């Protein structure tokens, strides 16, 4: 972990009126890691996500991704440079089929604007990914008809169509059944083994401890601790923040 991290956040700050949601927050996501971002409710995890992915503008601080400073964070540009995310409430295109949802996430050059809606190679890639996520049999179904958990799987699968370098997952297992949690964990491990890095916001601590290294703990918008799961688990300040004090 001596190399420069894939994503580096420094002094990130965001105020909403009188509330400082993120206050001088700094952390990194090492290349090829599954980094966890944890913290009690309201500690600024999702806001940090929004700042990093360009969905909100930071008041100050810098974000460096893949060696370059992100000057004007914009979701389209960031996504095209390999930084993509999922949402806490899975966001999919309900009126499109699963395959179309997947193909819409393929990052195309301008010149492809008037080419076929779903090309054969894209369909094959989509079906293959849907199969890995266990929802290939629903490929031609309207995405709006999926269950909540299946929508989460679809959203996760779809961002992979853009061939990202780093995926930010916002509570990937919130509200899904244990079988699905296992499946998502397995997918993250599989993809990570192939070199894909993750930054995961997650409340399921067992999962975080099993899956993630390093773990970054936020409280009231600032970093409280960062390190190996075992170190973090035994950190007195972390226990304090979670259990009150």
């Amino acid at each position: 972990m001596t190399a420069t991290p894939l994503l580096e956040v420094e002094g990130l700050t965001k105020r909403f009126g009188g509330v400082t949601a993120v206050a001088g927050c700094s952390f990194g996501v090492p290349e090829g890691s599954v980094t966890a971002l944890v913290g009690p409710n309201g500690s600024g995890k999702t806001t940090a996500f929004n700042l990093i992915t360009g969905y909100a503008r930071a008041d100050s601080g810098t974000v460096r991704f893949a060696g370059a400073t992100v000057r004007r964070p914009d979701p389209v540009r960031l996504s095209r440079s390999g930084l993509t995310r999922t949402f806490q409430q899975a966001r999919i295109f309900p009126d499109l089929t699963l395959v179309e949802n997947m193909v819409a996430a393929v990052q195309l050059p301008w010149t492809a604007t008037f080419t076929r809606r779903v090309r054969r190679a894209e369909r094959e890639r989509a079906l293959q990914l849907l199969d890995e996520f266990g929802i290939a049999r629903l490929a031609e179904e309207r995405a709006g008809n999926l269950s909540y958990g299946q929508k989460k799987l679809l959203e996760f699968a779809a961002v992979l169509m853009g061939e990202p370098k780093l995926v930010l997952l916002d509570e990937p297992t919130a509200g899904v059944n244990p079988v699905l949690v296992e499946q998502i964990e397995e997918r993250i491990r599989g993809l990570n083994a192939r070199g894909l890095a993750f930054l995961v916001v997650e409340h399921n601590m067992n999962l975080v401890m099993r899956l993630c290294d390093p773990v970054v703990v936020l409280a009231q918008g600032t970093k409280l601790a960062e390190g190996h799961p075992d170190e973090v688990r035994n950190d007195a300040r972390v226990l304090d923040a979670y259990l009150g004090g």
Partner: protein
Amino acid sequence: MTSAGLARAAAFLAVGIAFPFVFPAAWLVNIGVLTLMYAALATSWNLFSGYTGYVTLGQVAFFGLGAYTEAIVFEHVAIGSGYNPFYVLPLIGTGVALASLPVAWIALRTRAMTFAIVTLTLLFIVQQLAFNLHSVTHGSSGLMLPTPTTFGVDTYDQPFYFAMLGILCVALLLCFGILRSKLGLMLLAVREDEEKARGLGIRVTGAKLTAWWLHVFVTAMVGAVWAYYLTFIYPESSVDPLVMIGAVLMTFLGGRGTLWGPVIGALVLVPAQQYMLIHLGGGEGYLIGYAAVFVVVLLLMPRGILPSLRDVVLRTRERRRTRRMEARPA
């Protein structure tokens, strides 16, 4: 294209071409011109608003710009045999559409209601310009176009009819092509969840501007033909909010976001309106009848004619399948 789709398109084209020959009476062809005009306007409104979900109420501004461009050009240029004003249509469409892009780029920074209102103001701005740019538009006294003398008295309406039919076909082909292309997928993604689409790296602004460009391209050509058809235009008639409302209502009536919905909406509403105009007299009485048609259809098919019919067909098919399954011995 499926064979059913091809058959539909062929049937539509055949009926469209045959109509003025089967019913050559001028008043009928006149209704035909108006119907096709509204069908083309509704189809191009649908091309932008139906697919992106951005409701524009400013389309008629570009109808008016097309009309005025045509009138201003042929105030100074000879119409030749009478067909020259038709040949320049693609140029007028291209020009007006290009000129509209900067405004669209700014307007598209807003969403939903704000976008509707911003585009609505475009309509009034263009109308005010038509009133006040006296030197080019002659203000409220209006602009005259030369009347073609080679079209013949009995068949005078026909060239305009076929021009409108041609533009409608272009609009339908564009819609069909878009729905089958990446652009269509991008636009639908914008309609469903634009923020999410951005997160996936979809260049939403470019996609929206492309659709906008195409819808203005068609709209301006329709306006140009309309101006030539009437040979006299003035600000209130060429930038008329009622025309705007008409095109939007027809799209809703037929089915927003569908290929044929806007055409069906126009086929129902325009003849109904003209029929009532003739039979209920010149007063405002016909507007009540016109509104009644609309209320009845919306009561029976709130999502529009096409989507509702599609539901009925699907349900019947399902029921039949279930019955067949039940009938089969276990």
